[in-house]
């Protein structure tokens, strides 16, 4: 019930800037949580000055362990995130984490990392971890975004990617269509890909998971559910896996083996 250590820490805002009309980046100083955070884990944050009640879950987009900095990338979706976007440098944010179980790293071959929408956030840390911390083959990275106004992600991952591919819904950059459409070509170009890790909308993950399972490529998916607690006590986030076992997205996930979710 209590596998990884977690804590609550007040993190001061180091910077909070706009990446696009509806997406912001936030850097918080919270060295203790950062020192424990692994790729694919998440945090629950609360702006104690704000008007919302529950904490809000966000994937760990990246960490700077030397400086104790945490990067979150968030879509201004509703009340809490819109209030968050108003906050300036120095404002305190209560951060709880690191939470959940992140991606696993077996590292036999090359990894294809796929992100859709703000699901791209945790891909950043995962890419850096594969390329720098583990010094393995650089991952191939595939991002599915709406249009050419969402290419800001490149800045965060360029250095860690063997190759960075975009698909856009409207064809305004890269290949027109969904992320999954780009996969066959990528697999042809990189036959050493042995693992796929995906974070994005459910429909996208489902399609990719089915493709990976069919091709015998190990695939992990990162799920999203409404959460009240984030550490396994409210039971707001549970689901039944293909094995019949009940899982908590917050504690057993958010990363799951694709077979257990979509198999």
């Amino acid at each position, binding site marked *: 019930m209590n596998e990884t250590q977690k804590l609550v820490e007040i993190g001061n805002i180091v910077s909070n800037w706009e990446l696009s009309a509806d997406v912001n980046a936030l850097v918080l100083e919270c060295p203790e949580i950062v020192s424990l955070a692994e790729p694919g884990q998440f945090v629950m944050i609360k702006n104690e000055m704000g008007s919302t009640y529950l904490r809000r879950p966000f994937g760990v987009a990246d960490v700077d362990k030397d400086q104790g900095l945490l990067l979150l990338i968030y879509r201004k979706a509703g009340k809490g995130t819109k209030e968050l976007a108003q906050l300036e440098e120095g404002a305190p944010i209560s951060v709880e984490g690191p939470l959940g179980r992140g991606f696993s790293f077996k590292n036999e071959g090359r990894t294809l990392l796929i992100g859709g929408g703000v699901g791209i956030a945790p891909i950043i840390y995962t890419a850096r971890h594969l390329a720098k911390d583990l010094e393995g083959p650089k991952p191939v990275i595939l991002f599915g975004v709406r249009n050419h106004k969402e290419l800001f992600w490149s800045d965060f991952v360029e250095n860690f990617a063997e190759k960075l591919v975009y698909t856009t819904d409207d064809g305004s950059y890269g290949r027109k269509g969904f992320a999954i459409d780009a996969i066959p070509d990528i697999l042809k170009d990189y036959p050493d890909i042995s693992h796929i890790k995906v974070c994005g909308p459910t429909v996208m993950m489902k399609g990719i998971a089915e493709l990976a399972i069919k091709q015998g490529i190990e695939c992990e998916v990162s799920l999203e559910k409404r959460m*009240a607690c*984030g550490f396994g006590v409210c039971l*707001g986030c549970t689901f039944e896996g293909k094995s019949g076992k009940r899982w908590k997205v917050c504690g057993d996930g958010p990363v799951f083996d694709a077979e257990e979710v979509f198999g």
Partner: protein
Amino acid sequence: MNITRLATDFAGIKMTTPVMGASGTFGFGVEYSDFLDLDQVGAIISKGLTPLPRAGNEGVRIAETPSGMLNCIGLENPGIDVFLRDILPKVRKEAPNTAFIANFSGSSVEDYGIMAEKLDVDGVDGIEVNISCPNVKEGGIVFGTDPKAAAAVTKEVKAHTKKPVIVKLSPNVTDITVMARAVEEAGADALALINTLTGMVIDINTWKPLLGNVTGGLSGPAVKPIAVRMVYQVAHTVKIPIMGLGGIATAEDAIEFLLAGASTVAVGAENFVHPDAVVRVAEGIDKYLEEHNLSHVSELVGKVKIG
């Protein structure tokens, strides 16, 4: 924290502080061990247990509301047998010094008796009878809104256990004192109030209810004034001790409940937001007692000045 000021005997359950973790918001207690010292938790109250495992409700189960939340978990739990076999021993090992109260419900009067008997084991310090879950038919709400049925359940439970029996009341009734009196007369050792208030949120983009179960139970700071009022009314109706809960986030909130007539309190949804809340509230009560030159928390109970 000064234990001599806070230690409380609640209907025979010995607790180091009068502040507990409320059912359904505190897991089985041990999930909180990273955030607080379990020795300083008055009592762990378990997630609602049922005779058989329950998967809970489909669809969205959580919605934020102004100063609170709605939930329709639907009593997801592993069932009484798995609890007794796997969970209770683990809890007793990791939190040996904390009082443990098992919360449970059933779908018939007989169910309640069977559950009470199964829970009459070492390691369980008291039992809390949930006749008030608004989210499932089997959650006992039918027993929680009819005084005769509530009395029948209470009698059945009392006949099957030697543990102190706390009956948890629903606020979804016209007159909660009628329920309180019925349950007291049937032999309850203590009362807990309030459970959640039935509520609903509609998504105006889809014109559909936000929650999978259509309705859910409201809790959090939004419900506190209602809960304090109900504790006040019930305290003037019954002689058995009361656990007050509903919207407690701070020591100040808890003290209101004590003044209204509760001798203990429980923290619910606030645990999700600030997972050290149970201990912080106890510490705050202790500080208040010191500042007011009071030697024990019981000196606050029911002391609200009217007129």
